């Protein structure tokens, strides 16, 4: 062993931090889109008429039982066949969003299902239609109760976003790979990047704690 040399890595730190920003952006966008999708799917799974309801249920089962990596590969290879060309970033964002939508539909759906019968009855006698009942009663309650699970999933997504590098997105892991190719300081780069991920996830946990206190 020739010993560890961190000098070349420190010089690239700003570049890595840029990658970290990209990682955060990718995760936050996929999380936001995934949450919106999850809410729609969770509602469809309970309320929609049959073909749509079954489709929503099938969607969740399919996406939670296959690897995200293969899903993104499928998107990456198949979209061009439909005449669509997405940038790597957009392809990965789409894949992560679809995947997150399925997992979070489960998380949100469990809480929706736990709505007390009395809430449904009270809403009905108040003359609230199903839209208002969902918008003002069922969803706010379900989402507040789902915060733990959603936060956990966000952290999993933050770590999972490293697979974007495989498709050429230059987020934190992608840039780590670039620096390794340049400097051959693989262990040094990987260890620094590991620390950066730990920091990102701790910061995310703190931000979430703040958010929940605000809400």
């Amino acid at each position: 062993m020739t010993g560890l040399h961190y000098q070349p890595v420190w010089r690239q730190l700003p570049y890595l931090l840029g990658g970290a920003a990209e990682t955060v952006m990718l995760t936050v966008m996929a999380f936001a889109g995934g949450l919106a999708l999850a809410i729609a799917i969770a509602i469809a799974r309970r309320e929609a008429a049959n073909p749509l309801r079954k489709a929503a249920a099938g969607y969740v089962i399919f996406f939670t039982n296959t690897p995200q990596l293969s899903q993104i590969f499928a998107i990456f290879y198949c979209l061009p066949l439909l005449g669509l060309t997405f940038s790597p970033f957009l392809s990965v964002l789409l894949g992560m969003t679809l995947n997150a939508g399925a997992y979070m539909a489960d998380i949100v759906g469990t809480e929706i299902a736990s709505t007390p019968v009395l809430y449904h009855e009270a809403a009905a006698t108040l003359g609230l239609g199903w839209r208002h009942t969902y918008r003002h009663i069922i969803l706010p309650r379900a989402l507040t109760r789902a915060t733990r699970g959603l936060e956990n999933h966000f952290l999993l997504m933050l770590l999972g976003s490293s697979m974007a590098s495989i498709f050429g997105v230059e987020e934190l892991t992608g840039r780590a790979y670039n620096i390794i190719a340049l400097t051959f300081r693989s262990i040094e780069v990987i260890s620094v990047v590991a620390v950066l991920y730990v920091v990102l996830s701790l910061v995310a946990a703190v931000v979430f704690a703040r958010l929940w206190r605000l809400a």
Partner: protein
Amino acid sequence: MSFSHYDATLILRALAMTITLSVAGAVTGTAIGTALALLRFSTHALLRPLRLLVMLYVGLVRRIPFLIVLYGVFFATGMAGIDISPPLVALAAISLIGGAYISQIVYNGLCNVDTTQIEAAETTNLRRGTILRHVILPAALPGIVPPVLGYLVLFVKDTALASQIGVIELNQAGIILTNRGLPTYRIFVLVLCLYFLVSFPLTTLSRKMEKKLAASAT
């Protein structure tokens, strides 16, 4: 170009690799995780430094992407001149990560056991090891098994990342066949279906088990 005998063999061997990695990872991950949790749950004063080490390990590793751990093990073994095959590198990485996650689950389960039960056992002068084996573990198991199963189901899908260090598992087989010019979408539909066939029964099983344990707990 059409699907040859050779291609079919490739896919099947890749499927076997995915299953092998998942099963082996489940075994080592559960073993490591349980050992670490028991260590962390111990009360012996001499083990204190070890407990802190375990806590640090569990706290950190669960905040590092699997891909980074995989690369880390890959480069570290390479640099140390240890000559091990890519599947073993993947297994090592899976065990490192799985051990951390599972140890957290097991530890939470142990902590959730009603303390009055433990105190009652302690007043009878039973040894700590005996209490652990006959009181705490049986009481904790219903809270541990379902989430561990749930986690292992997640892990089947994470083995797809092993493709990145050259392990020919399902996802990698899909890429190889695609690069050979076979129709992309068909290959990936096949790959996704095969993953589904492995994962779905496990998901169903863990859900059923969870329900059964929840029912028997009340």
